[in-house]
């Protein structure tokens, strides 16, 4: 007879801590979807571990009644690596922001992804430093006027999805904080993926950068600005689903009216393509020139770092036997001094 896990609910994942994000912060919505998705995974609560760095989003672990580590600025992927090496059974989520993961912690993000560590990285992108009260971030658009750039920023922003795909991430997705159903589905898929899942969430900082993503979140407006990706389906969007994306003669994407065009001529999404070129092309489609893709851009399978590490340890134990200290101490040349 199998023992059934008690059916958990979102409430079981809520800690007793007062949530201290600003009123109407996009983070609330992400927290709510996370609490909704986790009970569906059939994993006991103690097997979850949330690791974060520094920033508004990084307070997230305090609000989850799971294991949690609020670490230091930018280092969450490295802390998560240690957690996974010590205890590979845990499902580890890294909660980070655009400054935390792409500025001070860029190096760790890159290496966690290229190793394909089995963690889920959720990047709350609000294109601003919120906790330090409003400086521009590495994802702020060129020319952003902020506290530290009164004349406008002059450095080109990073595209989080391009970075992840550049590091050959095995799972890359994007969603929006208030698009609750889509967000929950995206988190669910990230949770199920073996290896590093990278999810960018457009998150509204209504205090320092309000409305940055209205084009992708406001009903009546977003339909013309985003495309929901579906594996094996053509790229169609628009309020009346009357527009699509196809590749032109130069292999570049272009938006076309569907009238008079066969759906078969459109670009079909293939999230499982080994070659990351399509995923990169999708990541490069930015508002306002293009509709921005939401959903899973890339989902492929590759050796998982922590599994490979564990396999090596198991293999060593299998082939060499449990470590024999007596033998180790006496290895090499020894000699005896007689009494």
């Amino acid at each position, binding site marked *: 007879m199998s023992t059934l896990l008690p059916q958990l609910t979102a409430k079981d994942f809520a*800690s007793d*801590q007062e949530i201290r994000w600003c009123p109407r912060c996009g983070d609330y919505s992400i927290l709510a979807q996370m609490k909704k998705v986790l009970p569906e995974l059939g994993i*006991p*609560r*103690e*097997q979850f*571990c949330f*690791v974060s760095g*520094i920033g508004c989003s990084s307070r997230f*672990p*305090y609000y*989850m*009644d*799971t*294991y*949690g*580590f*609020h*670490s*230091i600025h930018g*280092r969450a992927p*490295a*802390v*998560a*690596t*240690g*957690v*996974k*090496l*010590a*205890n590979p*059974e*845990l499902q580890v989520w890294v909660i980070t922001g655009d400054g935390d993961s792409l500025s001070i912690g860029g*190096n*760790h993000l*890159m*290496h966690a992804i290229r190793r394909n560590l089995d963690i889920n990285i959720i990047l709350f992108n609000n294109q601003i430093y919120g906790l330090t009260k409003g400086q521009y971030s590495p994802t702020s658009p060129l020319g952003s006027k902020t506290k530290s750039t009164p004349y406008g920023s002059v450095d080109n922003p990073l595209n989080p999805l391009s970075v992840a795909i550049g590091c050959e991430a095995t799972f890359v997705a994007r969603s929006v904080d208030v698009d609750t159903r889509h967000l929950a589905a995206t988190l669910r898929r990230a949770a199920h993926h073996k290896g590093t899942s990278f999810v960018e969430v457009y998150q509204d900082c209504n205090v320092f950068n309000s409305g940055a993503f209205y084009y992708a979140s406001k009903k009546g407006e977003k339909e013309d600005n985003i495309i929901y990706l579906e594996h094996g389906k053509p790229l169609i969007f628009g309020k009346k689903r009357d527009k699509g994306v196809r590749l032109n003669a130069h292999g570049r994407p272009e938006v076309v009216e569907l009238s008079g065009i066969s759906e078969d001529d459109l670009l079909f999404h293939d999230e499982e393509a080994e070659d990351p070129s399509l995923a990169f092309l999708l990541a490069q489609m930015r508002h306002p020139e293009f509709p921005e893709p939401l959903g899973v851009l890339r989902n492929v399978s590759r050796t998982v770092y922590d599994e490979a*590490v564990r396999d*090596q*340890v198991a293999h*060593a*134990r299998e082939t*060499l*036997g*449990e*470590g024999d*200290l*007596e033998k*180790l*101490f*006496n*290895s*090499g*040349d*020894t*000699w*005896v*001094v*007689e*009494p």
Partner: protein
Amino acid sequence: MSVADTPASSEGRRKEALDTVVIRFCGDSGDGMQLAGTQFTNVSAVFGNDVSTLPDFPAEIRAPIGTVAGVSGFQICFSSKDIFTPGDEVDTLVAMNPAALKSNVADLKRGGTLIVNEDAFEASNLKKAGYDHNPLEGDEALAAYRVHKVPMTRLTRDSVEGLGLSQSEADRSKNFFALGLVYWLYDRDSKPTVDWVQTKFAKKPEIAEANIRALKGGSNFGFSTEAFTVHYEVPPAKLAPGKYRKITGNEAVAMGLATAARLSNADVVFSGYPITPASDILHELSKFKHFGVTTFQAEDEIAAMAATCGAAFGGAMAVTASSGPGICLKGEAMGLGMITELPMVIIDVQRGGPSTGLPTKTEQSDLLLALFGRNGESPLPVIAPQTPGDCFWAIQEAMRIAVEFMTPVLLLSDGYIANGAEPWMVPNVSDIEPITVDFLTEPNVDDEFHPYLRDERLVRPWARAGTPGLEHRVGGLEKKDGTGNVEYSPENHQHMSDIRARKIANVADFIPEQEVDGPVSGDLLVLSWGGTFGSCRTAVRQAQEDGKSVTHAHLRYLNPFPRNLESIIRSYKKVLIPELNLGQLSLIIRSTYLVDAISFNKIQGKPFKVVEVLNKINDVLNS
């Protein structure tokens, strides 16, 4: 007749007995001097001498050939007595080229034996070394030594003739020729080296044969040449009975960690980033997976430290190792380990600083960094091993304190003991105390878990992430005692800062009292720490033999200090603190105990010579 053939007779050679000899091999970085030195150390250790070594190599892997910058050296002291240092002055210097001669001859004692590869003393090498003439030709400066000009390059080529090797391949064996000659001179049994060569070059039998022939050639050259009228024997030392092996400090650290992993109920997760002189710990440990050791080569020093914090949260005995520049980068994450009160060990194999400094040379200049190199009030226990073999015990002790007190612990090794070797008595596994980790498995306040609820020693429980019912959050923010919830109140921060400091101070009750070598009171206390043990102990013993009222106290625990240290310090008229820095322990001792301690500092990338410490002892006693 080739020099590799055994000569016919052995008449006319005198053998003298010596108790202690210091040899230094020096040559170009590519000349295989570290290998020659290591082999000499092995055969001497196996023979039963006490040995102590000092490898000294440049930071550049291949500095320009023939230059002084590219000289690599390896010094061995071997003795029939108990020795603590690789020796002050060199008895026999083997110099493979002019640059090696130039940069090393000053350490050769007057009347000492100088063996040079005469073939290397040609115009271009002389020029690269900065000689305007050949020092081997009637140089007054070399008149104080017994000089043996040996055409090693030519004789090595003769020895390996017929093996079909190219000239450059043949020349690569000349370190074995030099080694063979020195083996003959000191009556060493070359068998361990022959065995080593056969194993090492099993897949290249012609190279193995060349090296063995060169070794024999060198030995035979010594035997058959009139120039060497005498050779020496150094009888085995009367070490404590038992089984011995040779060990370096880095090897000992790795073995200590494998031991901790195997004997305790938690695995070791080691995270590191390559850095001289700590990398060998990572190399060694990566072979010990079957002992329960997982190694992680991180993307940088910060990641290695952050992963160490994560691994501790995950329930592993977490360890990282680096050297000064890396420790600087780790500072913030070490503070995270400190405030979250998770157990881990940070190994600092100190090297010359600041910044990149002297990567391959030794120094003790990270003491203050270890004690204070983090923001905020963040005291951590600091332990310093004193010899290569001691690293085996010190790393386990550091881990034990970390687990017992739920705190990061710093282990301050240095380049000298990390790379230096000594005979090490092989311990019985049954004599080693296992580290027992007491993971909490049940809630500790009714049905709740309070991660910062403390025991009488102020230590909080360790709950391995993944334990049912103990879900909790830790982090770098100030937290409320007991629950661990974020708490910024002024009273709480004062309380937590005090508690964390007192917890570390309580370690003093856990560690043994300080021992002294010499009378328990008197004129002078020599107070030293870490890798200077050998020089200081030898110097103090010599002063004691001279009838001086001197005692040696060698500190292993730098924070907290042993509880009886103050009373020891107050039992002597004067306190002398020799350190390989500009007075770091001295600063702490002076401020902690308000004692007018005298600093004796050296910061040259080299260990103390015994004579330097002895002279200072005499100066202080006479002043």
